[in-house]
């Protein structure tokens, strides 16, 4: 698509904003519509737009196959790892407030603040994990289905 300068320029301009927006959606997942899944889809869509505009080869140099494979695993590992961290800190699986550790013990506003923070950070970690998985899965599916070469 070498002659399609309009699409290339527009995509170049718009992709950073799409990615920024996806980060916004992930980060505000706990208090507004959106979350890891939605943010991940938007991030994946930005890469898909890049590939559509610039071609598969250019896209693979930016996001290599190894990277998407790693992202697939790391997202779930992040999720499961946070759950296990909660277990190691002495709570139930995915009991985020235990992540505060000793700061969350006792009474008073300080401990309450620590618990609150731990809860939010736990959820952020989970959301980021989900976002990474969804984005990489979207990219993988697109690359695999759009691929016209016979490499099977």
């Amino acid at each position: 698509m070498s002659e399609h300068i309009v699409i290339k320029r527009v995509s170049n301009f718009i992709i950073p904003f799409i990615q920024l927006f996806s980060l916004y959606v992930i980060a505000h997942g706990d208090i507004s519509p959106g979350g890891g899944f939605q943010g991940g889809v938007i991030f994946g869509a930005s890469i898909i737009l890049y590939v559509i505009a610039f071609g598969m080869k250019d896209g693979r140099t930016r996001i290599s196959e190894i990277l998407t494979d790693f992202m697939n695993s790391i997202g779930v590992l992040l999720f499961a790892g946070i759950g296990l961290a909660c277990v190691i800190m002495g709570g139930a699986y995915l009991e985020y407030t235990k992540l505060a550790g000793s700061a969350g013990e006792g009474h008073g506003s300080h401990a309450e603040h620590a618990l609150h923070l731990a809860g939010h950070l736990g959820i952020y970690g989970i959301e980021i994990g989900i976002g990474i998985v969804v984005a990489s899965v979207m990219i993988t599916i697109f690359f695999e289905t759009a691929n016209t070469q016979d490499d099977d």
Partner: protein
Amino acid sequence: MIEIILGKYNYWIYIALMMIGFYAMIAKENLVKKILGMNIFQTGVILLYVSISKVSGGTVPIIWDKGGPYDNPLPHVLMLTAIVVSVSTTAVALALIVRIYKSYGTIEDDQIVVINSHDGDKEIPSEKASTII
């Protein structure tokens, strides 16, 4: 009678959607059309769940300082999971169809059945076997 039809229209719509999808899954020969039918089939169930979560006078279940009654958020969350499942099933099915097309050269179910019956029930090829023994 009219109350049953109008008062519970969400059930009628979901049943209609499900049956359209079900018909496509069973009757269509084209593998991709079956998958489309499957998506409609699952969408029917999603519609059922989302429509039962409506609370009269309720608003979107995102906490908001105006307050007021909220719709039941639990079915929405459940359906988020079901949508993810549906998307992944579709992705797996499409990947399968791509590979079926590569090895059979067609995605029509009846033609594949014919090709399979010509193939017969031959052995699983085991190229290593002759060298091992």
